[in-house]
């Protein structure tokens, strides 16, 4: 009996050494499986990133080797009016477009979440603009907003308004880009919709029994339960908003017309690299952008602990 027990015990739990060896084997297999992606990440992300940090400290004009100049490119930014103007425009664009886009996408998702016969069709229709290339979308917007011939101004004038020359008026040009960037909100809407459809029906009904006010349910129950989706859309939205380029260059060109009102940070980077061939300065601008976005993302993730609810957590 005792011998049998001993055999059973040794068979049930392997020795620590054997367990360590098995663990190492599993870890090796895991690394092998992940290796293609690790190589891809290193080749296309980490190495270019490090190179960018390096080139930012050089004078590099494509032809000829880069020459190390320390922090001179960063110092040049302080006196570069285009840097400050584009930073201001980009910050304003991000501060307005991200919350606006999130609010609209959430509203749309709430509407789409109501089961109707045409739900599937609506979902497809609202996703389609995302599939259109940004340049093509920008050209369509330019046609829509053309003074005199564009339908937007024709309709506004028919109702007695005096619409601006959207793309040539410094006060409205940036708003036109904001409108243009908000238009393809299919992805954000689908992310929110996924979150809304994940809320158990009985939880939603319990909220209806607790209060007759729909906004109570929205504010206290629905929104907290989709905070992971809000966080995702917020972070991705901020990253993309700081990288706004195609719409800005189609509408404002490389000078940000009218009067630099549409001059965005990415356009300044593009201009420095491919118009003035000052790649070192462009890399310095890109490095600053990288750290600003990283800092913002880290700040959001830091605060997320207090306002994001994850289903798996029990705290």
């Amino acid at each position: 009996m005792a011998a049998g027990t001993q055999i059973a015990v040794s068979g049930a739990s392997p020795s620590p050494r054997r367990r360590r060896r098995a663990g190492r084997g599993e870890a090796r297999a895991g690394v092998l499986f992940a290796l293609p992606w690790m190589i891809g990440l290193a080749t296309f992300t980490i190495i270019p990133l490090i190179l960018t940090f390096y080139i930012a400290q050089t004078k590099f004009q494509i032809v000829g080797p880069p020459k190390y100049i320390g922090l001179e490119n960063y110092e040049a930014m302080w006196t570069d009016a285009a840097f400050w103007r584009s930073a201001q425009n980009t910050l304003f664009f991000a501060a307005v477009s991200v919350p606006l886009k999130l609010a609209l996408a959430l509203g749309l998702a709430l509407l789409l979440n109501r089961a109707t016969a045409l739900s599937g069709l609506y979902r497809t229709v609202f996703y389609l603009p995302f599939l259109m290339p940004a340049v093509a979308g920008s050209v369509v917007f330019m046609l829509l907003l053309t003074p005199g011939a564009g339908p937007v101004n024709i309709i506004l004038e028919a109702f007695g308004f005096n619409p601006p020359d959207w793309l040539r008026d410094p006060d409205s040009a940036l708003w036109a880009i904001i409108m243009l960037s908000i238009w393809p909100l299919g992805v954000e809407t689908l992310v929110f919709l996924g979150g809304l459809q994940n809320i158990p029906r009985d939880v939603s009904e319990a909220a209806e029994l607790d209060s007759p006010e729909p906004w109570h349910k929205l504010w206290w129950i629905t929104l907290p339960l989709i905070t992971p989706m809000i966080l995702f859309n917020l972070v991705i939205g901020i990253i993309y908003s700081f990288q706004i380029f195609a719409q800005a260059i189609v509408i404002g060109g490389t000078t940000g017309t009218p009067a630099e009102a549409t001059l965005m940070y990415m356009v300044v980077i593009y201009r420095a690299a491919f118009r003035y061939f000052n790649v070192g300065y462009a890399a310095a601008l890109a490095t600053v952008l990288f750290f600003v976005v990283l800092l913002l993302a880290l700040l959001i993730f830091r605060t997320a602990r207090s306002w994001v609810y994850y289903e798996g957590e029990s705290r």
Partner: protein
Amino acid sequence: MGAVTLTGVRKLFGTMEVIKGIDLAIADRELVVFVGPSGCGKSTLLRMIAGLEDVDYGAIEIAGRDVTELAPALRGVAMVFQNYALYPHMTAYDNMAYGLRRAGLAGAEVDKRVRATAAMLQITELLPRRPKAMSGGQRQRVAIGRAIVRNPEVFMFDEPLSNLDAALRVEMRSQIARLHRELQATMIFVTHDQVEAMTLADRIVVLNGGRIEQVGTPREVYHRPANIFVAGFIGSPAMNLLPANLHRGAALELGWGTRVTWTAAVPALPDNAPVTLGVRPERVSLCDAARAQASGEVTLAEHLGDETILHLKVSDGVSLTVKAGGDVAALVGDRLHVAFDLAGACLFGPDGRRIAPD
């Protein structure tokens, strides 16, 4: 006053009518249980009373008010769901306080009511916890607390014990019965579990295919089933329903040829009218061959300790269930003889309705 009155209530999903004209009056402080097979409409009917499903035709009154078109939160009802439906991002305290806060009650009053209810349900220690950190039974107690704290006119329970294990179900069942006594509130309870229905209900509403088959006390629906459906649905194991022919209102010729005397009064029927004899398994007893009214081969023997459930094949298409003592050692394949105690038996007419006893 938490009386509930349903008048001609109907519900359609598309073209399919799932609730087919329900008339029902639930008295104040009554505990009524809706039972029926899956898809009979019991949960839909409860949800219509709560306001979670629209009423297509008819009217619902709660405490004398027509609530047919009112929002759920304005009907004075509280509901306990099968899956608890606690707000997962809130603590037990916040779950219970949520409805009160939204109703605009002062913080001190909210706190007083939540803590008093928690003490009554012995869940005070759970108040700081989120649902994820609770067991199924604890979550269900919090869900009941959330309903109680609102002090509703009518409590509704939608299969609240289905997700609990057997021991916990018994405990929660007795707790709900105790709450009904203490709160003196109207309660509507939906279940497919007959034990829950029989032990909790003041009255049972048996539903089938969107219609009420019978409304009565647990004793009435068990001993005086209105029709063959109720007879077959209520009771576990189910009542034996045996084909027979009634001769001159006094003798029954059972399907396998045996004749038994029928003494209870029956309405006038044509001679040799086809009827159904309903005998509960506990009214069928094992006997010797000389006194046997039926004999059959054991097809299944369930030894449950204190009792044995035997399934006999009497003739082609006719089976019998016998509830015998725990000491009966019959095995599958044994041939057994049985006799019927017709004192508690029911007779159903050709249309399936009970014709005897009255």
